[in-house]
């Protein structure tokens, strides 16, 4: 299937007091029409900055997109004027943020926040925009939508606010939604509701989705393909089935082994990944994961391993010792 969004060799960096941080360092991934792709990793791995770069919302002047291409329906978003980019944001690519309270305007009514985009992007008049807003709220499962239009975000619970964010994202029929930790701030039972809603709507409306998360369970339940990030780079790229069934990078394997699972007998001890997360201002010259890696060899400290295939073109890993890891898992 054709790529809807193709990110090629994206580099985004931030200048900080302690030096330049390469938050995203030469990353390539794509999202095809109608599918759900996940960017997974821990805090600071560059997953959110990747999405913000796609939207060209990286905070300047500290942050800067240094290079690469972001091809959306064949057009490079990095070459668009600010005016052209505004038509893409919200209209063609929408974003859902983690904290719905801070990403909604507290002094505008729910109705106004929903109709604003419709009026600007879709050139709708007030009345049809209102009608569409009511339809959207109903679609995301907010009861009594007509009355809700006059309310403010603080009248809504966390789960309802996230539903409202989803309604806003869907308003202009975008072809892609970037969801940055959409359920992390929510309780388990509400998280399940919101994820089911997102999955159902994206499938029904044929919207492609990029889910950014640190939760491996969420990825397993909802993503078709997965990119695992570590210290600004993609270290493994595969379909969800392959990634979980046949992990080819020590970090992926470590993440999967370190979480207790409800479906497995309880283990006496968890197998954590040793050491501390990397300091992005002082990354080692070779593989950033090497200091914590059980498969480390001399070469790992010398050269950055490129993403490569061990056979399947759809499954890539950035590890010099991937063959040894796979053979050991098979043995």
């Amino acid at each position, binding site marked *: 299937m054709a790529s809807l969004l193709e990110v090629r060799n994206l580099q985004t960096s931030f200048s900080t007091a302690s030096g330049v941080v390469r938050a995203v360092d030469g990353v390539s991934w794509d999202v095809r029409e109608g599918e759900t792709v996940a960017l997974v990793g821990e805090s600071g791995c560059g997953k959110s900055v990747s999405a913000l770069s796609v939207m060209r919302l990286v905070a300047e002047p500290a942050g800067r997109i240094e290079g690469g291409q972001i091809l959306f329906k064949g057009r490079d978003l990095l070459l668009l004027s600010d005016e052209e980019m505004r038509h893409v944001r919200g209209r063609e690519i929408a974003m859902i943020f983690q904290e719905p309270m801070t990403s909604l305007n507290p002094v505008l009514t729910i109705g106004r926040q929903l109709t604003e985009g419709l009026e600007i992007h879709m050139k709708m008049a007030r009345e049809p925009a209102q009608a569409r807003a009511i339809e959207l709220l109903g679609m995301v499962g907010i009861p009594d939508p007509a009355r809700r239009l006059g309310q403010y975000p603080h009248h809504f619970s966390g789960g309802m606010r996230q539903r409202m964010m989803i309604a806003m994202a869907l308003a202009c029929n975008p072809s892609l939604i970037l969801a940055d930790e959409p359920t992390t701030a929510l309780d388990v*039972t509400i998280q399940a509701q919101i994820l089911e809603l997102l999955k159902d709507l994206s499938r029904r409306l044929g919207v492609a989705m990029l889910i950014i998360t640190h939760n491996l369970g969420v990825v397993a339940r909802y993503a078709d393909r997965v990119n695992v990030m570590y210290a600004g780079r993609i270290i493994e790229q595969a379909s969800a089935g392959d990634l979980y069934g046949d992990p080819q990078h020590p970090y992926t394997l470590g993440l999967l082994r370190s979480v207790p699972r*409800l479906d497995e007998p309880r283990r006496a001890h968890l197998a954590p990944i040793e050491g501390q997360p990397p300091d992005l201002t002082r990354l080692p010259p070779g593989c950033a994961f090497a200091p914590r890696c059980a498969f480390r060899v001399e070469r790992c400290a010398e050269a950055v391993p490129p993403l490569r295939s061990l056979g399947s073109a759809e499954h890539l890993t950035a590890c010099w010792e991937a063959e040894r890891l796979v053979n050991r898992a098979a043995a």
Partner: protein
Amino acid sequence: MSDVLLEVRNLVKHFPVGGGMFGGPVATVRAVDDVSFTVRRGETVGLVGESGCGKTTTGRCILQLERPTSGQILFEGTDLITLPAEELRVLRRRIQVIFQDPFSSLNPRMTIGQILAEPLKVHRIIPEKTARAEKVQELLAQVGLLSQHADRYPHQLSGGQRQRVGIARALATEPSLIICDEPVSALDVSIQAQIINLLEELQSRLGLTYLFIAHDLSVVRHISDRVVVMYLGKIAEVADRTALYESPVHPYTRALLSAVPIPDPKLEASREHTVLRGEVPSPLNPPSGCVFHPRCPIAEPRCSAEIPLLREIHPEHRGACHLA
């Protein structure tokens, strides 16, 4: 000595919600509403539930950081609520806490060494300075930190290292009971397992008892011997780990378990998901009868009329459901 270290009896904590500027309280939040459970010496009891269920308030009442509206908190048989301040101070040393957020629970202007020396000084455990510095070194080693960490400030440490400092500080007064309030939920996945292993290792080495408050059911199953499930200020179910996870009797527990995504796409595709309707109602105005009935997939008419008692369904397995 009795087997029971801590007994919470009919604990109630209501927070008045103020009216106008001069008005008295106009409503009451029933944060904890008649909660009773015991914690045996050396075991880990998990306290789970979603935000607003009263798990943290229960922990704070045990720590005497919150004055309960009524009920008893018996620590080794002594009721902490009625204890005179001076005696409480002595006893309170033996109950410590580890907080969720290691960023905001450490004083940013103190070095790690000073943070760890503070409880030793305040509780007059080691009045002499050099001896205190030695104890600080011992505490650092116990939680897997290096001696040079004593001179660092909290901001110079990673999240996982900060949580280790939080644990070391709790250990300083040689407690019997540690209330762990979401100790790993602010940490990265790869670090969570390190901290959980550390907590378990300390427990077996020092004979500690934990009340482990958390919302992550997989983590709670891993660490707990027994589990208490709370919903809207009340206990829904109490059982040992295996019984609770393998044969839950309360529909809320079942829904919680089914909501946890499992990191295995094949399994996820075939798994039944019970998605609960609606949201947790406001504790200002809890539903009549069983507080869970508006969201319950199997509710019957009597569920909205009669409050279900927490009763023994199987030996050592209690549930508050008419239909269990």
